[in-house]
């Protein structure tokens, strides 16, 4: 079979079998899967508010998906999107709160977004440089850095920056807020979906160009595929590792644009809700391809929000099972596909 066909077939097969298995689980829980999925579709694609909720989730998922995908092109596992997103969000909230209210919105948003990206990149680069300098496994480093990020943001929030008797920081300057679609175009009635969705999609396009159309991506993919050959070909694998991690971290950090600048307008304890980890699933389902990730993020956005809407019939935990099962199925099908190609 051809690699090209497999590329489409594997995610499709994984999706179909996920649906099959999740239907089975629902049936076992004495629920009618057709009814449940019907309700989910109705509550998401069928309503403008629901679509907005889905787009809102897609935006963050897309960014944390890219955070896993870009390092993955170098055969690096960035498990740290969660921590990178936390650092980015906290930074964006801090900077946003300090900005003078008279600042032009464009500048304020740019400044906060860049700061968030820088914070995320910095956090990922810590793991990257440990890898390059001392050969520390990036999986372990990024997992540990997740805990450290949680600790730091938690401490700073609780002891220094939380507004009295709340668990969040002071709100950002209104200039730094990214407007919702509702406000600008009237779409997605009242849903938190905001214009940062364009930022996320734009970044995905940009990274696709970087990876597959630029010389830089040619070198990066080569270094990921065959490090020994890359060295012979004059490519510095260490630099490539750092860049891939840095870009991944920056993408995760930009998640702050959606959840802080676009939605909450402050940093709140537990606001990321483990979405960084779902990013790994998003990336895997898309085969780490920056364009497919858009669709994959939308699918997970559907599961996340759709799952919430049918909460009364089927507990959210079932959807955790579905999401995780998708990852396992994708990995298994990919391995199987290798054997047959």
């Amino acid at each position, binding site marked *: 079979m051809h690699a090209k066909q497999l590329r489409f077939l594997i995610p499709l097969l994984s999706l179909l079998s996920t649906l099959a298995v999740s239907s089975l689980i629902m049936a076992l829980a004495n629920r009618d899967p057709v009814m449940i999925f019907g309700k989910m579709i109705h509550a998401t694609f069928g309503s403008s508010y629901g679509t907005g909720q889905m787009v809102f989730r897609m935006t963050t998922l897309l960014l944390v998906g890219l955070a896993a995908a870009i390092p993955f092109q170098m055969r690096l596992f960035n498990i740290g999107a969660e921590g990178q997103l936390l650092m980015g969000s906290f930074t964006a909230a801090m900077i946003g709160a300090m900005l003078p209210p008279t600042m032009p919105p464009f500048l304020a948003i740019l400044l906060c977004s860049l700061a968030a990206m820088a914070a995320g990149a910095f956090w990922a680069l810590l793991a990257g440089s440990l890898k390059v300098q001392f050969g520390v496994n990036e999986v372990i480093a990024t997992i540990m850095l997740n805990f450290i990020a949680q600790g730091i943001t938690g401490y700073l929030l609780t002891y220094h920056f939380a507004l009295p008797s709340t668990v969040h920081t002071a709100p950002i300057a209104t200039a730094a807020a990214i407007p919702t679609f509702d406000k600008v175009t009237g779409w997605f009635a009242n849903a938190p979906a905001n214009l940062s969705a364009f930022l996320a999609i734009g970044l995905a396009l940009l990274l696709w160009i970087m990876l597959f*159309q630029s010389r830089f991506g040619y070198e990066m993919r080569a270094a990921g595929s065959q490090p020994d050959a890359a060295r012979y070909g004059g490519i510095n694998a260490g630099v490539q590792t750092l860049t891939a991690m840095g870009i991944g971290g920056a993408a995760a950090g930009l998640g702050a644009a959606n959840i802080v600048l676009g939605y909450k307008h402050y940093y709140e304890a537990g606001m990321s809700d483990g979405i960084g980890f779902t990013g790994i699933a998003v990336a895997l389902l898309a085969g780490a391809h920056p364009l497919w990730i858009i669709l994959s993020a939308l699918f997970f956005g559907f599961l996340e929000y759709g799952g919430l809407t049918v909460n009364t019939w089927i507990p959210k935990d079932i959807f955790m099972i579905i999401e995780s099962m998708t990852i396992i199925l994708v990995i298994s099908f990919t391995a199987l596909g290798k054997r047959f190609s």
Partner: protein
Amino acid sequence: MAVAVRLSAVSKKFGSFTANNNISLSVEEGTIHAIVGENGAGKSTLTKMIYGMHLPTSGELSIKEKAVRFTSPREAIKAGIGMVHQHFMLVPELSVVENIILGHEKSGLFRPLPLESAKALIRKEAEAYGLVVDPDAPVASLSIGEQQRVEILKLLFRHAEIMIFDEPTAVLTPSEIDRLFITLRALRDTGKSIILITHKLDEVLAVADTVSVMRKGEIVGTMPGSSVTKEELAHMMVGRSVLLSVSNPAATPGEIVLAINNFSYRTTRGEWKVQNLSLNVRGGEIYGIAGVEGNGQSELLQTLWGLAPEGTIISGTATLKGESIIGKRPGDIALMGISCIPEDRLRHAVITEYTVSENLLFGRHRERSFHRGIGFNNPAIKRYAEEMIADYDIRCSSPESQSLASLSGGNQQKVVLAREMNRPGITLLILAQPTRGVDIGAIETIHNKIIEARRTGIAILLVSSELDEIIALSTRIACIYKGSIRHEFSQEEVELKREAGHKFQKEIGLHIT
């Protein structure tokens, strides 16, 4: 006589490309059956079908007259088929005996491994087939020839009756080749059937009972090994007469380009791989280094391309027109005007999952003429790729979409040769085993190109374990042994002795062992 393997009208297609077309062939029991043919003729594909790695698109395969349909090598192994791949499938950290029983531990989970019985087998087979190897040695410490013996022992341990060898001699030294042939004959004499793929026609004539010639996916002839000559075989393979030796007009060397002085190399484990080696290569000459693999050639080449691992201790100097090479990175060395074809090209010189075009670019992707914006100038690359493909006769169906991995072994080699021989503005060309794995037609082409490059004034450093090649091409010849140059033949000597061919080989042989 009984037939061990029979193919009836077997075809294999990859997409729309037919790699094997309507092949009918029988391999008789207890014979050595050689298969020869150009790069890309379909030899490996044919054997991979017998070994269950590819499923035939149509046609029938039978083993000992029983029709079979293997969907994996595991099934082929069960049917008594074994294959020695060119890239050995051994676990370097494990010992010889552990490697041999790997996957076939006939013991319960908590019972000890049958190490003793396996060792007894190794001793027995060593005697019967000349497969001498220390059962307790870790595989990492073995020479290539010894590793191959372990692969053969693995097959014997699995009771393989039909054994496939895909270019087993490409990486062996002449004396190891002789030993392998002793083993192959002994195996045949005990009734095993052997399929042997090779590009070295002398070997075919020396060892094969039957020879089949393949061309463009078809068998164009099968005959007894004793009834053909090398020239006839070559003609059948490529469809024209091949000059079996290249014409090498006298060289007029110029200035010294590469100068190596008192060069020594100590590995991180403290072994001295090269000691006080000195040589120089002039523009317009081919300086050949003859030697058995593992005598310091790899380390010398590594250093010249900036790839010596961290922690190695290097002393002495290596300069290109006075500028030091040691300590520079590969990219900068390329910019100095050096091009290098490394020995292990699949590992070092290509990205196998990249397309053919992308690989023709690899390592040269920093050249301005290939750039446009932040990306590549695709039309320019396409033109360049087409030119290289035509020039080096690289057999591929669609260079822009076909991955390098889908090329035949010899065509993968040609991609690297084409790319490195054509780097613009080079003053030094380093060639390690330049014709390994390519067919005789391609050897002729490549040898001519090397001579041509020399005539333009490029300095060429040629490292090869093929004495034929060293003698045919070199202006001067150095014999390397245990990391030093033991003897150097001057230009006059080489020109004089080249005619003597075989006698000269023997003389060189004395200096390298």
